[in-house]
């Protein structure tokens, strides 16, 4: 890394000396000329020489003082804050994202340094946030992957034992199946998210009927709600077209529907609505499930975040990250409103396409 170049003190002195010499000489000449003409004084060589010597000494002395004052000023107003910034930047480059510049470094510094320091600290805070997310992500992935594998391995070992009752055997085999299913879901979601994040999926835009897509998507969960005894209600405006990627949006709907059904108990209700508001479309999925607290709703779209930390309800905390990522890609927004214990409403806002010919499958 480049260091700031330090000019030696004599170069400052030389600069000040030349400046002082020039200023003093000019003013003296001006003054003496005027004085000699108006007062009619004649200069002798000897008294001129003496005066010049004194003036020269004076100039040297003044320059010295100026140099000293300037060096001092630089030390306080420039060098100190620059050193603090360079020091912090070096630590961040070295991977220490906790580096911050003390605001004291800006006291008495030249104008603008306080602003730079502020900006720098914000940047460092942002970087350390990202870093925490990254380490958390890796920690979560390995935890989520290793737990089911450990369970499977253990039960697999247990199953080899010859003295098992039929009951135990079935129970262990069920545990293995359950965990492998969980692992499969997780791997599928990680791969999907990875594909979305690396933008390997380019949205394939076409115009289609959104209400129909919602109906068909919802119907895929018919067995689930029949089995759980959940009441479904819909209010879908007709002839609402969107111009978007059908497959990506299907991912959004099925995640929202499956969440709503997952967190709603028997006898509860899931309501799906499609409304238009000017050139915007609002799709909302409301459930009468357990709801989420405001603290949870702030993090709900983060990877591996699960409101229910006991992991009692199946899932892997990636569904809503996928949803948010899709929203980023297709240029939509998603909001959540919820009251703990009463249910939640997820609302997706996307752009409406002008009515016209619907493109059928190619």
């Amino acid at each position, binding site marked *: 890394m480049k260091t700031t170049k330090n000019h030696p003190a004599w170069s400052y002195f030389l600069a000040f000396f030349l400046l002082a010499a020039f200023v003093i000489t000019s003013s003296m000449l001006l003054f003496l000329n005027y004085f000699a003409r108006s007062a009619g004084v004649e200069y002798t060589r000897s008294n001129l020489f003496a005066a010049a010597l004194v003036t020269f000494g004076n100039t040297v002395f003044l320059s010295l003082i100026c140099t000293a004052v300037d060096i001092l000023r630089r030390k306080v107003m420039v060098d100190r804050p620059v050193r603090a910034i360079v020091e912090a930047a070096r630590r961040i480059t070295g991977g220490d994202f906790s580096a911050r510049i003390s605001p004291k470094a800006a006291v008495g510094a030249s104008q603008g340094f306080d602003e730079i320091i502020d900006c720098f600290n914000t940047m460092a805070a942002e970087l350390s946030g990202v870093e925490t997310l990254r380490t958390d992500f890796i920690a979560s992935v390995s935890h989520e992957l290793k737990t089911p594998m450990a369970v499977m391995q253990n039960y697999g070992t247990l199953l080899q034992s010859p003295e098992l009752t039929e009951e135990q055997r079935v129970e262990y085999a069920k545990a293995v199946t359950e965990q492998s299913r969980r692992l499969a879901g997780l791997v599928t979601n990680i791969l999907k998210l990875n594909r979305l994040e690396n933008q390997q999926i380019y949205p394939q835009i076409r115009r289609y009927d959104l209400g129909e897509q919602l*109906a*068909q998507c*919802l*119907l895929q969960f018919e067995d689930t709600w029949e089995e759980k005894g959940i009441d479904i*209600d819909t209010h879908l405006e007709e002839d609402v077209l969107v111009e978007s990627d059908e497959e990506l949006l299907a991912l959004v709907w099925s995640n929202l529907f499956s969440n709503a059904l997952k967190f709603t108990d028997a006898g509860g209700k899931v309501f799906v609505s499609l409304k238009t508001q000017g050139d915007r479309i609002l799709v909302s999925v409301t459930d009468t499930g357990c709801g989420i607290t405001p603290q949870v709703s702030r993090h709900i779209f983060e990877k591996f975040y699960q409101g229910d930390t006991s992991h009692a309800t199946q899932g892997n905390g990636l569904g809503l990250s996928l949803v948010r990522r899709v929203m980023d890609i297709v240029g939509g927004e998603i909001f959540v409103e919820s009251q703990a214990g009463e249910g939640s409403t997820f609302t997706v806002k996307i752009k409406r396409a002008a009515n016209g010919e619907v493109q059928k499958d190619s």
Partner: protein
Amino acid sequence: MFKLLVVEDDRDLNRAVCAFLKQSGYDAVGCPDAGSAFDAMYGSPFDLIVSDIMMPGIDGYEFAKTVRSLNEEIPILFMTARDDIASKQRGFRLGIDDYMVKPIDLDELLLRIGALLRRARIAASRKLEIGSLRLDMDQRTAVWDGQEIPLTAREFNILYKLLSYPGKTFTRSQLMDEFWDVETNTTPRAVDVYMTKLRGKFENCPEFEIKTVHGLGYKAVVK
């Protein structure tokens, strides 16, 4: 007993699927690749094929294409790790009947195989029988308890579709797309009119009921 052919190159998975199908009352034969699958098919006819896509040598697409050119009827189910829409599209365009993404749920596989075989039978016989109700596709007649119930062609087609997939809900648009001309100007609400007519005509028939599903569509529930 139905004879099923399982084409899958992973030995463990092949063995597991075959064992499960045998346990569930099917006669399943496993083949590690398309070549040996063709050999097996020369030996004896099969009722349904479950096939992987990514296999050494001839892949699943090529295999399905060849099978389809020889036999238009036999149901083919793809069982693959590829979950992108392009792969599904390619498969269905070649004429496969169902698609499952690995890791598959064996119980679901069983349900799907059951449905495919039932539909294949319906398609082959072109007749549907539910209790004392008989639908004949060739003559487009519905006979209940020895009495013919007069139906228009479209009414018959809609009913036949719903009863071929009992318990499955179809949206109005799905039915429109299938039974109305593309150029038609009628709205999906026209489907409602047909449902009312059908319900009226089969009012006394206890074998099934047409249910409206929460503003989403219609399904036939067999009792």
